[in-house]
């Protein structure tokens, strides 16, 4: 398959993730969307590594995956604390910063 196919897939996954982030009301859903966006980037990195025969991209991906894991851990922790404090994880109600 050509490089373009991989990149199209990545763009699609990214767009779906962004759509999820913007439209989901649940904080956990938003986190899932973010995961999708990150993985779209990973697809890009791997695809470029493969087509340019450059190992740096693969290693970079490994780093990204581990950082993603950490990010999810922190994100979920925030969601749990948020739930404890506000008794909700609906994004519509989390507007403490409103001007």
């Amino acid at each position, binding site marked *: 398959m050509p490089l373009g196919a991989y990149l199209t897939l990545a763009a699609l996954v990214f767009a779906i993730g*962004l759509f999820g*982030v*913007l439209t989901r009301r649940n904080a956990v859903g*938003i986190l899932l969307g973010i995961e999708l966006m990150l993985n779209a980037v990973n697809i890009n990195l791997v695809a470029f590594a493969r087509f340019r025969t450059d190992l740096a991209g693969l290693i970079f991906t490994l780093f990204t995956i581990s950082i993603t894991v950490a990010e999810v851990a922190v994100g979920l922790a925030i969601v749990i604390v948020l739930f404890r404090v506000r008794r909700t994880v609906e*994004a*519509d109600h*989390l*507007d*403490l*910063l*409103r*001007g």
Partner: protein
Amino acid sequence: MRTGSATLALIVLGLPFASFLLLALVRRLRRSAGAAAGVSITAIAGALVAAILDFRTAVPREPTQSPSTTWAWLPGDGGPMATVGVMVDDLSLTMLLLVTLVSLLVQVYSWAYLHDEPRPSLGRYYAYHSLFAFSMLGLVLAPNFLQMFIFWELVGLCSYLLIGYWYDRPSAARAAVKAFWITKLGDLGFVAGIVMLWSATGTFDFWTLFSMGTMGTLPVELLPCIMFLIYLGAVGKSAQFPLHIWLPDAMEGPTPVSALIHAATMVTAGVFLVNRAFPLFRLTPDVLVLVAWVGAFTALLAASMACVDDDIKRVLAYSTVSQLGLMMAAAGAAAPEAGFMHLVVHGVFKALLFLGAGVVIHVFHTNDVFRMGGLRPWPWTWLPFVVATLALAGVWPLPGFYTKEAILAGVLHAHLTLPFLMLALTSLLTSFYMFRVVFLAFFARPHGHAHTPHVPWLMDYVCRLLAALTLAIGFRMAFFGEHHEGPGWLPAFSLTLAGAGFVLTWAMYHRRVVDPARVAAALWPIDALARRRYFLDAIFAGLYRWVLLTFARLIGWTDRYLVDGVLNVLSAWTLRAGDRVRGLQTGLPQDYVYGVALGVLLLFVLAQWSLR
């Protein structure tokens, strides 16, 4: 021309300063009046001894040799910008003697005069006196304009403090403030003149300036303006028209203070300044003519006001203004040495007049001459006063006769005919108002007061000493002094004037063959004007109220509504704009993500655009 020892001059200067520091810093000493007076009087007596020594050991000097001893003060490029030091020449040596002598006598006299004052405030009084002596001595010793200005302001401060000595009296507090502000008005000109002189020549030093004057390297086109501004300082300090209005009010202070500061020493600082800077004034004949005219006019104006006042101290104050005008006229007529001689002898007998007035005030507990009288059986209460009166009226062989004659001769010599006539009339009026006071305060029929007046011996002896001194100076001038060149008819003329004044008073206030009220009615326009002080106080008050306060209100309005207004409008707009924009901040995380995503999209579009 002689020059004295700078060390002795510094001792003269240092003793009162040490006394002031001691009294100001050691609270206990200040609050125990006796010790405070002791310290102050000892210091000034020491200063007097040092001044006498310096005067007697002064050595002749070459006309080109500088009498100044200076030390660098403000460092500058290529030599110090300003120096401090002492200038010990004939002028300052004579002033040292006068200032220390009168200060000493007045401080001794004050001890008796103010004996019923609360102890702590008496200590304060002596601290002020020491500060005053220091400042006045510093003024006369100053070798440059800058140092002189500093001491000039210090004596102004002392004058303020001592006029307001009874600060719980509203009239005294007001008089102190008035004296301070009116003299400050003149000082503005003085400081501007000094600064202009410095920027034009690069020096404050008298001696350097005098040498530049002889060599002709002074900036001629600027000099009249500069000297006029410097003269303004003298106008304020020496109570010349129109800034003379503070001096009569300054009589709110204790009588010894009036004797020392507002008769003998501080008010003569202006005349001293003109004398000190005379080599510069000589180069500006226009300013000198102005000085002479203003001086003569002031003399006449003040003399006319003295004729109608009932307050003995105010009469003396107007008399001081009048005599200062005379001295200024002498300086203006290019006869400064005559004016200076008058300054010195006037310092002695005017101090005596005030101290003598203090005696009668002490006896009658009033300043009103119409409520005094009946002192004829006790000659020691009036004899010194009469001696001083004769000296002031210019009767042979008392000192006033010679100095006034010299001044009149000088004015005549300078072809200032109208000022000469004004001064002649002033002489007549001087004799008139002084004998009026003598007849009313001492010899009038008593007002149910027959018992022996109680006069503290200290006050009595100070007056006797000053009277003896006046007589001694007069006799010395009469029999050993060189006589001033003038027209031969002048001595007879001035004696006639004095005699005419005496006869007039004698007829009006002693024999009462002429009714004073009818004389006043005959001269009603002048009488009415003089009684209202020629409306000058009212004019100044009006200027203050209508011009200055209106201006201040205008400035206040501008500040409140224009300057503040712009800022207020700006801040209001900022607030409203913020109010409008705050709606953008929803606080919802997803809206921010929208913003970021849209922003990134926009960047992409822009990047595409520029790539193409």
